[in-house]
């Protein structure tokens, strides 16, 4: 087992977690771009996705494909409902009030899950039963392959959607200037709902992939990938979709390499350290636009 093989394996591991981070980070970034808020509850949508999948497959015993579609639908609907109830009334409120509300929603989702499913971790068998492949000396598991393919499809699809469709350009318009967009006849409420739905659907996919990898359910399972993905979104430049993709992948790779070659315990410190250094050099993230206040 050579050093190069080891590094390549870590890179693939990193890309796998990074893909999941990227999917979640896109949700953070889209919501930030359009509603100018940090949706702290976004990580918990992953958790809801994971538990939904568990309910649909293990309890209701639906076929995997149907369970996945229903899981995505549940999360998208949840995203819309949360926005309607908790965030919409605060559109013009100070950003701190919205942040605290989002934290409240996060606690709410976690504790509802705690009440229903209890704190004891529930083991969960992966729904992905594809066998892995072998490239030279490197094994790539089925879950990893599916993660790569799913993420790539989602990213390409989303990029096309945002840049090539009417709904996508409405989204870009609202995120640029909400007032002007509404004067141009764009339905702002609908566009914001759609953004939350898409972001949450991506989080659901991330949740499914995450749980197929880690195979254990806990009410707080969304917190860690949630916060990492948030860091990824900021690293890439919050509000910027390609930035979130880049940030997520980078973060996954850095984390995996530092875990393997530097120190397991310091991996988190290194990840956050990279964020701090990037922001000090580029205060708006890697791909973010620099904004200055006009005097």
């Amino acid at each position, binding site marked *: 087992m050579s050093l190069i093989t080891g590094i390549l394996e870590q890179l693939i591991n990193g890309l796998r977690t990074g893909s999941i981070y990227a999917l979640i980070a896109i949700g953070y970034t889209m919501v930030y771009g359009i509603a100018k808020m*940090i949706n702290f509850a976004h990580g918990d949508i992953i958790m809801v996705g994971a538990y939904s999948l568990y309910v649909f497959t293990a309890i209701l015993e639906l076929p995997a494909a149907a369970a996945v579609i229903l899981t995505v639908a549940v999360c998208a609907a949840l995203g819309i409902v949360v926005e309607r109830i*908790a965030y919409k009334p605060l559109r013009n409120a100070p950003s701190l009030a919205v942040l605290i*509300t989002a934290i409240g929603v996060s606690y*709410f989702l976690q*504790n509802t899950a705690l009440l229903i499913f209890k704190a004891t971790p529930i083991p969960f068998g992966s729904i992905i039963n594809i066998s892995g492949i072998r490239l030279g000396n490197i094994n790539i598991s089925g879950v990893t392959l599916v993660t790569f393919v799913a993420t790539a499809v989602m990213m390409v699809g989303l990029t096309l959607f945002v840049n090539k469709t009417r709904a996508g350009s409405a989204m870009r318009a609202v995120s640029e200037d909400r007032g002007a967009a509404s004067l141009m006849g764009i339905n702002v409420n609908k566009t914001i709902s759609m953004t939350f739905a898409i972001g949450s659907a991506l989080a659901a996919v991330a949740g499914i992939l995450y749980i197929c990898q880690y195979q254990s359910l806990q009410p707080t399972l969304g917190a860690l990938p949630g916060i990492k993905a948030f860091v990824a979104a*900021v690293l890439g430049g919050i509000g910027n979709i390609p930035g979130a993709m880049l940030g997520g992948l980078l973060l996954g790779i850095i984390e995996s390499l530092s875990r393997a070659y530097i120190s397991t315990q310091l991996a988190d*410190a290194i990840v956050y350290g990279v964020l701090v250094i990037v922001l000090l050099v580029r205060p708006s993230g890697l791909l973010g636009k620099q904004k200055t206040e006009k*005097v």
Partner: protein
Amino acid sequence: MNKTSAGKTPAKYGKIVLNILITLAVYAVMMVVIQGGMLSRQMTSIIIPCCINVMLAVSLCLLVGYLGELTLGHAGFMSIGAYAGALLTNYLDMPPVAELLIGMLAGGIIASVFAVVIGLPVLRLKGDYLAIVTLGFGEIIRSVINSLEFTGGAKGLSGIGTYATYKNFTFVYIFVILTILLIANLVHSRHGRAITAVRDNYIAAEAIGIHVGRFKTMAFVISAFFAGLAGVIYAHNVGILKPANFDYNKSIEILVMVVLGGMGNIKGSIIAAIILTLLPEVLRSAADYRMLLYSIVLIAMMLFNNSRFKLAIVEKRNLKKAAEIQKEGE
């Protein structure tokens, strides 16, 4: 002449006297309740945590409420103070109160030193970016402590003298009052005004000669100092420190106190800190539901505070004031 002269008017003296009376009354009641053994064990165990949270909330209030900068790394400074103080008192061999005093001084100072080192580069960032970077630093501090040998790593640092329990309420209470007094005094001084001016409009503040960076760093360091003090008390209350207790959820918990207290409002922060610390105990009978209730209350409060209903009340008050101004102006 006018009613705004500093500390010279009967109204201002009245306020000072009232505050002293409240301070003494709270102390008297607490002493009677503690000495009389009127509280359950759960309640006595929560007295010092209440004090600690008040210190944390008031110190964060200076940053979030008065400087207007959102930071999510307060628990990081608390942990630095806690570890520094505990490591020192574990090493010292003196009477408990002396050890605690030295530990607190060291904890506060070391937390401030870290605040200078972190604040100088970081405070150039604004808004959400500052929030995430301070969160990042909080997590860096936590994972570094987690990986170090002399801090006990993930197992924790144990064997800390439990000098700051409810039996030593007087000692802790003095520091709570000192924290409140010093920060409230600062807010009502030229330094505090400069800090508030930066919050309201940093461009205008610069234009009238305020070195914005200097005052931001000042507020950051002072806030960290008191968080460090609170950390040392915490260490000597629980007797064992674990890095996991200082993650970003702790920072958020303190932030929620400041926001529910009404931002830029020290009294509000104190009350919110006390209520939010007591709440889990009071809701103990609701056991499983208490965190759920807490989250619902949190969302409902935020929605109410920014609702049309509340706005209507504020508007009415403003209109009344505007009418008064009009009258006075004539």
